[in-house]
Every structure is written in structure tokens, then in C-alpha cells.
């Protein structure tokens, strides 16, 4: 078991290295360098050379890459040009908001999509199945910024039900503990703040969830249909189990592996894909930070955020692999 985990974690190292190399190369390929970006308008060629020497930009590329990797290993991405603060600190401040948004979006999506997928699989070919396909196609093809704007216009603007931007009103006092508004407010017993946090997160999370519902529902549907053709399901029926029991004890557990896979992958894409939604809803997360980093050519911050996304994505994949082991006894290698 421990060996399995170690194997999965070690297997992720080459991926991180490859991504690091890619980011390093992209930054070097972009026209101009840090010195020319940051230098004052009237800087001379000599000033630029001095800056390059100071930051090691005059060193051979391989040496620079080595420095880049050693800093990466220490989780040191340097100082943001724009915010004049350590990149790691900036990311640390923004990450909880993004995770909170992604997790709530995932909960909304899974709560709708998994039952929908299972129900459409059990009633294949019915009107419900048709409706499920329609929802899936709509969800996958509608761009999230469009859905977001529609929701803002309708729910916030027209119905005036929910706020359209931010995490909590600026004047609300909330001491930061975990960085997650929903958790902090509960820990401090501030139910009102919790409600406000929930109201704020609902629209952006629904927008994010929209695109996932289709994919998760379709994967759940085909997973359940596949398992339904397995011989052990016939055995379960022949045993005399009720249909409900067959579905609960035999169909669903065996369908969880593909469903967990897609949910894990989708959570990764959610966290890295929330950029547009965060900008639309002025959500103070990693996505809107990346947006401002890119538009202001803040290379250390951009690099740091992209690497963080990679870490998150890979960790989620490893996590999903470990969940498989919990579900499927056949994957428990080394069991006597």
C-alpha cells in the first residue's frame, strides 16, 4: 500500500519537471526579458546589463534553468513585479478562494450530474434520457463567460436575488483562519457571514458547474450502462435481490471508478479553468490573479501560478489513483 503511494508520487516527478521546462522555455521565448520590461524608460544599455548580471540573466541558459529548478524545489518563485511581494505569499492568499469556488462548483455539479447520469442509464431510451442528452450538450457547448453574464443579468440584475461579485461584502469583519470563508465563518460561529459567503459563491459556482454537469452525467451514464451488461449483475438479479438492491450494491459500486476519475480530472480543470469565471464575478482567487499577472507581464507571478496549477492537477490525479485502490480490491497489490 505504502509502496503503491510512493510509486504514484514518484511517477509524478517527471511530469512536474517537464512542465517546469515548458514554462521556462516559454518565458525565454517571449520577446524581451525581465530587464527590458522592468527598467525605467530612460535606462541605458549599461543599466540593463547591470540588471541582467544582478538577476543572473547573463548566465548560460542551462545554468539559469538549474537556478530555476532549485528555486522551484524550495517553492521560491521570486518577487512579483507588480505587487512587490513574494509570489508564494500572493498565491497563498488567493488559493483558498479558488479551491473554495472549485469545490462548491464540483459539489453542485456532482449532486446534479451523478443522479442524472444514473437515472438516464437506468431508463435508457426514455424521455428522461433524451432530456439528459440535451442538458449534457447544452452544458458542454455553452461558454462559461456567457452563462456567467446571463446569470448576473437575470439572477442579480433582474431578480435581485444574489450578489454578482466578490466573496463577502468588504465591510464584514471576518478573522482569517483557514482562508476559506465558509469554514472560517462557521468556526467563528458567524452564521450570518456564512450565509453571505454562500450567497456570493452560488452564482460563480453554478456557472463553473454548468460545463461539468454534461460531462459527468454522460460518463456516469455510460459507466452504469457498461456495468449493467456485466454477468455479475445477472447473478445479483438471479439471487432474488430487489432492483433497488442490485443498483445500490452491484451496479453503482462498480461504476464508481470511471465516475471518480472524471470528477477528479474535472476538479483539476475547474481549479485551473476558473480564470474566466473569476474575472466575470470579480472573485479574488488564483484565476483573477493570473489574469492580472499576465496582462501586466509579471513573469515570476505568472510562472508561480502556472506551476501551482500543475501541482494541484498532478496531486489530484495521484489522489484519484489512491481512491481507486480503496474501491477496487484487485488493485491492492501485495495483499496476501
Amino acid at each position: 500500500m505504502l509502496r503503491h503511494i510512493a510509486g504514484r508520487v514518484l511517477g509524478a516527478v517527471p511530469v512536474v519537471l517537464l512542465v517546469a521546462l515548458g514554462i521556462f522555455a516559454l518565458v525565454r521565448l517571449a520577446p524581451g526579458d525581465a530587464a527590458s520590461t522592468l527598467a525605467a524608460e530612460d535606462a541605458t544599455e549599461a543599466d540593463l546589463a547591470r540588471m541582467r548580471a544582478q538577476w543572473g540573466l547573463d548566465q548560460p541558459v542551462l545554468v539559469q534553468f538549474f537556478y530555476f529548478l532549485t528555486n522551484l524545489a524550495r517553492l521560491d518563485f521570486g518577487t512579483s513585479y507588480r505587487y512587490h511581494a513574494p509570489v508564494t505569499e500572493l498565491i497563498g492568499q488567493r488559493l483558498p478562494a479558488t479551491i473554495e469556488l472549485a469545490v462548491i462548483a464540483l459539489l453542485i455539479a456532482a449532486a446534479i450530474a451523478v443522479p442524472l447520469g444514473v437515472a438516464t442509464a437506468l431508463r435508457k431510451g426514455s424521455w428522461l434520457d433524451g432530456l439528459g442528452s440535451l442538458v449534457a450538450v447544452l452544458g458542454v457547448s455553452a461558454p462559461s463567460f456567457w452563462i456567467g453574464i446571463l446569470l448576473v443579468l437575470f439572477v442579480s440584475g433582474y431578480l435581485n436575488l444574489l450578489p454578482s461579485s466578490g466573496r463577502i461584502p468588504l465591510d464584514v469583519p471576518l478573522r482569517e483562519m483557514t482562508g476559506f470563508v465558509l469554514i472560517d465563518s462557521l468556526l467563528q460561529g458567524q452564521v450570518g457571514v456564512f450565509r453571505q459567503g454562500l450567497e456570493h459563491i452560488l452564482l460563480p459556482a453554478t456557472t463553473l458547474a454548468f460545463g461539468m454537469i454534461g460531462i459527468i452525467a454522460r460518463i456516469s451514464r455510460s459507466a452504469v450502462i457498461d456495468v449493467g451488461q456485466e454477468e455479475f449483475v445477472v447473478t445479483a438479479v438471479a439471487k432474488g435481490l430487489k432492483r433497488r438492491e442490485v443498483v445500490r450494491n452491484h451496479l453503482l459500486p462498480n461504476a464508481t471508478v470511471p465516475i471518480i476519475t472524471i470528477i477528479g480530472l474535472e476538479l483539476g480543470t475547474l481549479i485551473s479553468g476558473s480564470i474566466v469565471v473569476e474575472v466575470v464575478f470579480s472573485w479574488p482567487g488564483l484565476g483573477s490573479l493570473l489574469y492580472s499577472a499576465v496582462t501586466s507581464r509579471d513573469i515570476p507571478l505568472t510562472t508561480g501560478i502556472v506551476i501551482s496549477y500543475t501541482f494541484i492537477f498532478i496531486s489530484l490525479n495521484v489522489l484519484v489513483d489512491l481512491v481507486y485502490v480503496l474501491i477496487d480490491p484487485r488493485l491492492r497489490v501485495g495483499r496476501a
Partner: protein
Amino acid sequence: MHDTSRIDDAVLEADQLSLFLRAGRGTELKIVDSVSFSIARGEFYALVGESGSGKTVIARSLMRLFPPNTLRMEGRLVVDGVDLTTAPASRVQRMRGRSISMIFQEPMTSLNPLMTVERQIDEAIAVVGGMGRRERRERVVELLADVQFANPGSVRSMYPHELSGGMRQRAMIAMALANNPSLLIADEPTTALDVTIQEEILQLLLRLRDQHGLSILFISHDLSLVRRFADRIGVLYGGVLMETGPAHELIDHPTHPYSRALIDCIPRRREAGKRQAGIDGLVPGVADWFDGCRFAPRCPRMAEDCRHGRIEMTPTQPAQVARCLHPL
């Protein structure tokens, strides 16, 4: 009602059973035509046929394992006094695992890979209810010992992938016997197993039949296998029951030319220079029903009248019936 081998103490009675596959848009495909046979308490009845003869469909229709919108049943199919062709779904569901149990061809895929042997057997016991956790646990061990696991205590906590093919099939049998059913349907349960394991499973089934008065419907394509174990044999061909009767008599004196041909195909010690017998031609597909005898195109005794009308089951020997106008 020409089956002279009908018995009063019948656990199963199929009477003019026909099965139709619903092909959609109102079209139907007849896949089994007017099959009649019965199985007495404690009897080992073998239904033998080539692939495509309809034997597996009959086996599965006995438990109504097909959704009603895919298969229509006609005639009568009575198990423990309940006619399965007309019984409501809830009644049939309550018969599964209690009156009738089933084991399958592929022990590799017929057990749930995510559940331990104990949980799967326990689930079968719990179908009836009325037993506490501890009682059920003891019953699981008892059942596993009954199917000759030397160490039921350790087998029960194993997952299917940790068992060999023969062990899985025995676990399946233990599960099928959980509620002392009156009829066990065995759908080619040994086909996927080694010859030695095959023998072991068959001996086990016979012992269980003697111990529990179990009736067994054994589906097989292998006449040479079942003739050593079965009490009675039914020979299926292209969805039609051609002949049925006591095993020894049917093997020694087949009265239907198709039974004769099948028996001639049983491999024996080779005589020098002699080719292994076979049957020329192909089994007619379920899509083309033609008039007269289904075997006529391949039959060495075919006469003009075999090609017309409907041929009924008629007694050919004191205990045998065959669907043939010119029996042997």
C-alpha cells in the same frame, strides 16, 4: 400433451413453451418453439444442444432474467406451482434465489469483483430474511463447507480475483444453495473450467442433489459429459426439442435421427483410419423458420412428408418421445 414422461412430482413443467425475441417496431423473432419437458424432484435433467439451439434462452427465461420488453413467453412454464409465463414480476422476483437458483458459464465474470465471497453469499441468505447477523455468518461458513472448501473461514473473506475458476464456481454454487431452492439451473457451469475441475464440480452437484433433494436443470453442449451424470436428457435443435427420455435409453437407443447423429459425434477411442463423425450442414438460424422438421435438410432419413406441416412429439419408446415422422 404428448409427453409420456410426465411425472406427478414435477418441480418444473414446461408445456408447449415458445419464446419470442422482440426485435422492435412490433416485429418478433421466434427463438424457441413449443418445448415441453418436466423435471421431477431430485432429478438431474440435461438439456443438450449446439450453440444457437436456444438452451441458454430457455434457462434464463426460467427466471425471467430478460426484461419483458425483450422477450415474450407463450405456453406454460410452471415451477413450484407458479406459471412463470403469467406470474407478476414481483412474484417472480420472490421466486429467484428461493425456489429457483442459477449458476453460470463464466465463474470469472459472474461474481461481483468488489465484494468478498462472504458478503455475496450473505446477500443471498438475507433475501429471505429472518436471520440475525451471527446466524447468517455461520450459515455462510456452513455453505462454503458444503461445497467442499477445506478452509471456509479464510475463503469467506477473499475477493473473487483471489480464487481459481473452480473455486469461484463452487462459491457460486454455495450462493445458489443459500435458501435451499427446489431447482438449480446450471447453464454450462463447467464449460470454462479444466477437465479435472469439471469432474469435481459435477460430482459436487450430484452429491448436493442427493443430500438436499435438489432438482437440477443442466444446460450443456456436451453429450459425452452429461450422459454420465444425467437422469434424463432433452435434445434441442434450432429452438425445437427433438427428443427427450431417460439418459441411458436415449443414449443407447436414440429414436430421433438428430440424437443419433449427436451420439455418433461423441469421441471414442479412435479406430485406425476412421474419421471422427460429424454432421454435415449448419443449424438453421432463428430468423428462418420453415415448414416441416427443422433437421430435415441435414437428415439422412429425410422423406417427402418431413418437409411439410407441423411435426408433433410422439412416443417412440415406452419412456421416450421424439419429434420425428420416421423415428429409428
